[in-house]
């Protein structure tokens, strides 16, 4: 019987949140000894679907079969009882505990806690699948990839036969990703069923045996990885043909626009976040910034924007009309009054770049509310700008006064980008500009960046997807632990080269 081949089978699973349908009657089967990639754009319902297997949500309709028998998963405990283990995107570990302590945390023990036995069992699991982890290491001493390993060992320790990994590679370097994939292959060969949630196509091609595609909460289909290609998968994901090339023209008249010299800064816990960073940005180029999350990208941009206290160093701005301005020690308002047209698209769009409770008009005013004399605000110009952004960038909203917080991620970003480029900036800084956006909107953003570059603006593009950085940027600056690890030419560099620079300054192995 075919039914018995599935370790877990979902039949007609639906889940809605209020009026939003996250999953609409989805059928899916997982087999042992197989890696299934669950592919879909942000918001297509991948994580929701898997959370129902992990016991976090209850399906509104449909049934779940384990080895052909209907089961009910009402809590994470039920989920473990059926051998399902999920590794969430955000790790849930106790920092002051060791790896092994975290792994046994929450399990019911018949006798006293046997930590030595737990350590031994953790070592045994590691040896079996090729993990590298010291069970007695404290979590606060661990890198992101080690923490992920702890999470994976945790579910294996509980006897999981079916593993679900939610975007496991989002925070890893290319080298770490390779190691993870090797482990996953070992687990597959050990006859476990593995689901990897992702939206990175090259990874789907590299690791999976089968690909199931979701689109807007609907199940589109499952294909064998060997019989498909990235273009076909994208078309399934988006629902129509999409071109995947980023245009990268050269700007002829590059001039130096920004020179950062020996920049250092500390966070409020006096941890050094930037350490003697020096680089230049030319007008008419896109300078990519790569690095593991938290390597100083945020502090770098905020220092330039005047939002981060600077311990030492200088930031010189060369206006197109000649001369130079020192930006260190100036507030954002002073920088703007100096005539430096600096646009900044921060990582936290609603928390820093926009006012979520206001409509588009109110958000356009964020750059211009002081204009004009007298105590009253002028709404006419912001309103016109809001309408212009709405039309130019095709923002989908019930109206320009509708709170932007309630718009989808892509539309929120369009409002923010639209406002920032409306100032015709000479320096444009963006942090993770396409995070959480669908493919189409991502390409709109890439094109806008290139458009700004061809206008002669200096664009600083902090990104996380190395493939995109290599295709979009002119040069790539790699940060590692707050220091500049290297600057490479994006037209000739390789992913491996950048990956090495991300983990060690200068790219030396084991540094």
């Amino acid at each position, binding site marked *: 019987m075919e039914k018995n081949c599935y370790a877990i089978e979902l039949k007609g699973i639906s889940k809605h*949140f*209020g009026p939003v349908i996250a999953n609409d009657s989805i059928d899916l089967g997982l087999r042992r000894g197989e890696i299934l990639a669950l592919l879909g754009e942000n918001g297509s319902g991948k994580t929701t679907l898997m959370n129902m297997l992990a016991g976090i949500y209850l399906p509104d309709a449909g*049934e779940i079969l384990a080895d052909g028998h209907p089961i009910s998963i009402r809590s994470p405990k039920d989920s473990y009882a059926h051998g399902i283990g999920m590794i969430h995107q955000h790790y849930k570990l106790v920092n002051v505990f060791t790896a092994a302590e975290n792994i046994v945390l929450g399990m019911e023990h018949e006798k006293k806690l046997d930590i030595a036995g737990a350590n031994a069992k953790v070592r045994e699991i590691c040896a079996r699948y090729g993990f590298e982890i010291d069970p007695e290491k404290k979590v606060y001493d661990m890198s992101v990839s080690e923490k992920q390993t702890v999470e994976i060992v945790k579910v294996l320790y509980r006897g999981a036969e079916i593993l679900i990994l939610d975007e496991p590679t989002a925070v890893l370097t290319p080298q770490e990703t390779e190691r993870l994939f090797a482990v996953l292959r070992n687990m597959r060969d050990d006859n476990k069923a593995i689901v990897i949630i992702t939206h990175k196509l090259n990874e789907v091609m590299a690791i999976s045996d089968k690909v199931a595609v979701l689109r807007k909460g609907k199940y589109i289909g499952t294909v064998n990885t060997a019989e498909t290609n990235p273009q076909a998968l994208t078309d399934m994901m988006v629902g129509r043909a999409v071109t995947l090339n980023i245009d990268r023209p050269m700007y002829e008249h590059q001039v130096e626009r920004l020179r950062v010299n020996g920049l250092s800064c500390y966070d409020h816990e006096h941890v050094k976040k930037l350490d003697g960073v020096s680089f230049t940005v030319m007008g008419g180029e896109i300078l990519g910034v790569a690095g593991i999350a938290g390597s100083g990208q945020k502090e770098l941009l905020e220092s330039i924007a005047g939002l981060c206290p600077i311990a030492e160093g200088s930031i010189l701005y060369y206006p197109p009309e000649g001369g130079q301005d020192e930006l260190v020690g100036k507030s954002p308002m002073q920088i703007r009054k100096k005539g430096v047209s600096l646009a900044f698209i921060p990582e*936290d769009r609603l*928390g820093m770049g926009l006012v979520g409770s206001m409509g588009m008009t109110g958000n356009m005013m964020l750059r211009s*509310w002081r204009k004009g004399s007298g105590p009253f605000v002028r709404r006419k110009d912001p309103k016109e700008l809001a309408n212009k952004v709405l039309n130019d960038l095709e923002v989908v909203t019930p109206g320009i006064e*509708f709170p932007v917080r309630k718009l989808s991620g892509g539309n929120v970003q369009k409002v923010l980008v639209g406002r920032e480029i409306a100032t015709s900036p000479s320096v444009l800084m963006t942090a993770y500009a396409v995070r959480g956006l669908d493919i189409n909107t991502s390409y709109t953003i890439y094109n806008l960046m290139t458009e700004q570059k061809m206008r002669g603006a200096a664009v600083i593009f902090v990104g996380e997807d190395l493939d995109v950085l290599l295709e979009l940027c002119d040069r790539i600056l790699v940060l590692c632990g707050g220091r500049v690890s290297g600057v490479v030419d994006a037209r000739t560099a390789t992913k491996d080269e950048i990956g090495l620079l991300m983990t060690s300054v200068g790219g030396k192995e084991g540094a």
Partner: protein
Amino acid sequence: MDEKLKSPLIRLEKRNKSTIKPVYAWLIRLGSILFALLLGCIAIALAGSNPIKAYGTMLDGALGNAAFRQQTVKKAVPLLGCALAIAPCFKMRFWNIGAEGQITAGALAATFMVRLLATKPEGNSASLPLLLCMALAAMLLGGLWALIPAFFKAKWNTNETLFTLMMNYIIIGVVAWLQAGPWEARQGRIAQFPQSAWLPKVEGVHCGWIIVLVLVFIIHIYMRHTKQGYEIAVIGDSLRTAQYAGMNVGRIMMRTMFLSGAISGLVGFILCSGATNTLSKDIAGGVGFTSITVAWLSQLNAFAMVAISLMLGILTKGADTLQTVMNVPAAISDIIIGLLLFCMLGCEFFINYRLILRKKAGKGGAAA
């Protein structure tokens, strides 16, 4: 197995606020008031009175004749004024619960001006210059009293909730000391103001009601249409966004708190000059706290505050009558007011969420 496959009995689901009909939302609010009054019936009945008669007495006691109505308005005026004062702070998410103290500070400054300027008897008519001096002094001291916690918050990020609360007890303590010491007239009281320091009456109530009604429009325009109002709204939404936009957050906080304290101080002036004609440590009498409820219930909408403060005025005046006429214990009226506020605040939950009961024909049951 059958049991396990069932879905939970009651589920909560977030409503999409843009789709819920306003009429429906107001029906829920109205229903909550009726529900509270129903619960109140139980309390009244337990105290041995007839609930229907009790409610009738309350309504009659609050609105029955012109004198009662004037009393009701008199109770509503400080509530409204003070709710208007704290609205900008709350919009900024600066939790100023020190309006009580700022009122007291205002009343203290106004009294100081009376003692300074009205030294010789000046006849029976109100003196405009004196009243103006009193009002300005009250606003200044109320504003400064509110500025202190704002300064500390801006400089060292202290907790404004605790700070403003503690400031209440300090100023009330100061007045208690004045009342029993330097300013004592007789039996631990401060002398009544001369009539030149009394707010003139319009339509039988001191003209404070005109002042607060004008304030309703001023605050509405200030919050919706000025640059400062915009700054306040941005800070309230996200501090980081305000910094990103180049706003001097600390300065705006201090400015807004000064404004808020100044209006509270003005309310203090209205209370001592219009209502009690003297100063006592109980001058604010909880108005500073009740007005927080007024501000919240009206969702910081200046016009809604008029209605809510009137409603609370009717309730407190009605409760007073209930106590004297029907001998219902004072605690019962407090219980009724408490129930009303609880239900009105609680009903917002049902506006944001809806309950879904498990469907009778369980789909899971068929599997067994």
